[in-house]
């Protein structure tokens, strides 16, 4: 399950960032920030190739003492990036799960965009989006 979910706009400012309040949130934010660099690197590497819907998993970007934190990235065609920090101590290989989570994120994001009252570039304050993200977040007891 994700411990932190972030939606980054094309200009690399966050549209939405939310993490589990238990752990030191700043650490998650930092991870998101560092993964942005990797994301950008991958985007530029693609070059002429199609923009891959599924961005490469960054893998073990930031192993910590407590548990392995992996951050995964996902880029849409409009260069909106979703970064998710996942606690991989439970299940290791969950490629499809991560993909499905990103897909859900993407769908919710498009729903937010469809809302005429939402101006692109604003922070995402949709309750539907929040609840969807909540459903994905780790249920820390």
């Amino acid at each position, binding site marked *: 399950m994700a411990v932190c979910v972030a939606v980054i706009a094309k200009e690399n400012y966050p549209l939405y960032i939310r993490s589990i309040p238990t752990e030191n949130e700043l650490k998650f934010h930092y991870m998101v920030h560092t993964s942005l660099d990797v994301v950008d690197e991958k985007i530029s590497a693609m070059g002429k190739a199609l923009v*891959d819907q599924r961005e490469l998993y960054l893998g*073990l970007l930031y192993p910590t003492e407590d548990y392995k934190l992996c951050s995964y990235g996902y880029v849409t065609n409009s260069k909106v990036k979703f970064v998710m920090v996942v606690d991989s101590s439970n299940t290791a290989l969950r490629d499809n799960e991560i993909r499905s989570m990103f897909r859900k994120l*993407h769908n919710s994001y498009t*729903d937010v965009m469809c*809302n005429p*009252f939402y101006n692109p570039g604003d922070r995402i304050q949709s309750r539907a989006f929040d609840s969807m993200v909540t459903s994905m977040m780790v249920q820390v007891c």
Partner: protein
Amino acid sequence: MEGLTLSDAEQKYYSDLFSYCDIESTKKVAANGRVLELFRAAQLPNDVVLQIMELCGATRLGYFGRSQFYIALKLVAVAQSGFPLRVESINTVKDLPLPRFVASKNEQESRHAASYSSDSENQGSYSGVIPPPPGRGQVKKGSVSHDTVQPRTSADQQEPASPVVSPQQSPPTSPHTWRKHSRHPSGGNSERPLAGPGPFWSPFGEAQSGSSAGDAVWSGHSPPPPQETWVSFADTPPTSTLLTMHPASVQDQTTVRTVASATTANEIRRQSSSYDDPWKITDEQRQYYVNQFKTIQPDLNGFIPGSAAKEFFTKSKLPILELSHIWELSDFDKDGALTLDEFCAAFHLVVARKNGYDLPEKLPESLMPKLIDLEDSADVGDQPGEVGYSGSPAEAPPSKSPSMPSLNQTWPELNQSSEQWETFSERSSSSQTLTQFDSNIAPADPDTAIVHPVPIRMTPSKIHMQEMELKRTGSDHTNPTSPLLVKPSDLSEESKINSSVKFASGNTVDGYSSSDSFTSDPEQIGNNVTHQRSHSGTSPDNTAPPPPPPRPQPSHSRSSSLDMNRTFAVTTGQQQAGVVAHPPAVPPRPQPSQAPGPVVHRPVDADGLITHTSTSPQQIPEQPNFADFSQFEVFAASNVNEEQDDEAEKHPDILPVEKASDSASSLRVAKTDSKIEEKTAASVPANVSKGTTPLAPPPKPVRRRLKSEDELRPEVDEHTQKTGVLAAVLASQPSIPRSVGKDKKAIQASIRRNKETNTVLARLNSELQQQLKDVLEERISLEVQLEQLRPFSHL
């Protein structure tokens, strides 16, 4: 302000009162007058009231903001409970009963007081919500028309203030109707609980489904005081309608409730009958909404685009955030547009919100667009999925309203459909993988193009093929190329197309600009190929498939006929030289009339042809004569009719194809050896030079044939022209020597040819370079994709 923690019941109650006082619907400030009235209604001594006002900070600020108002209310409750008025007391006093306001004139308040007082113990979540209704019933005032929740009892709702409802209506409404309508939502007023229709209804839902959860809570929260109210409620049968909030309680019984339950039973029954009352849209409201819809979108079956809806609802002066939430709730299918049902739901929500009702987390069932319609439509499966996605950001809905009739079916499907929803996207992603797969195939082309007619992408593959062939032909003038030529032609049209394309591209100045011609080539190629195939079916080996059967051509529009000959000859020669020869041979043969223009191309062709024939360019002048004839002879002998040759020449358009086919045929014709090549080469330059009629007679019939073919393939004009030019040139060449038969001219011709050959080769070279670059780029991109596909494990 000091932190103020309110229970849900208190929150709702206060909010309700605030809305009541907020006559200007500012949502920020309660009118002082109203507030004072309210406080007076609290039956507190004036000095207490003043003290309260001081404590809450209103006197400081001079107005009652929401927080001040809440604090004041809390202090009123504190005072009414007999506790000393302290700032700290607002938070420290536990189980504070809701402030009671007894206002003779203000039914509402009293009602509220009654209802909420019954609530006093209900500090729970919506449990607090529930009691108020009954409490309301008890309100002495006949105003008990609290039917709050029940829109049906419209009569009652005459409360002057209809709490929040009235004045602040959305712009496009008539106050009257609004009040009435607002009753529905305002029903919630008295029952503030409605503010959260979602949570509120969930208990109902559960209740209705028989779950006693809500009841349990409710009963739990119906301690003695409420009982009284309930009892009194029972005393007021007419107002029993108020007990709307006892949906579940009916089934559940607590001894306490017995009496209440009696009344509640009515309520519940009524509740069940009008399940989603608080959010139900009455006919009047609906009519109003429909009218409003018409103003925006005359077609009732049409959509209101998001932008129009945004403007419309912005007029209601609700905060954008709330409007955004309303939109999320009401746009059921998430299409960015509102249907009539969605619009009514949104409008209803706006009305409710303006009346002080809090927005639900989930769209109330009554406001759901008629799923029945959706079900009727073909996309039943989709709709539930969509519903599931839009209506249930989480998975709660199914659990919430299991009893919803129309939605029952959909709810359980929602989850599934949400999964389906994902699967759909998965499919789409799989399609992406498909495309990637295609790209993967591309690189294989150059490597395997030898034998595989990989018909993936015409253009790129053609390029690849071309490159391949060109490389091959250039590298070794042996069979490998011919197999290339043969096989493509034999195996598939595309391959032939590829090869032909290569030819064409090779001939064209910029190998890729002639994509059009490429596309056109296939047709011709196809034609040729088919012909060839038909012939070649039997000779899969090096022997090129028989050249396309002669096509009777009424007229020879181009000297391309000559080109054909030359082409064949060249190709034959090329076969010997290698596949590479073909591409250059293919270039569109310019028509004789175009000879001057395409001269450049012709040389290319010619050169291409010639290069391969490079064996003895000097021989060209002599050989052309010979070549032509021999060509014809050979062609005739080898199934490749002169016609075919002529056709080859005549089909400048077809050159690419023909090249392929020619190559095929030329393979056979290869027997004629370089002579033919030279002949064609010579003929081409000759044509180029002459570019007209001096062409030998043989070309003419060919021309005719070519012409017919040309007519069939108009697109490749470019190539054909070029090739035609070349062919013409070549064709003319032999004629020249024949006609002149002088060394000088022969030498000049040969010089010309050599120059042309040089140009052709140079062009070829540049084109090949380009192709190489493209292929390299493709390779790089593919490698990148491959890397992407491979999960990264670095860092």
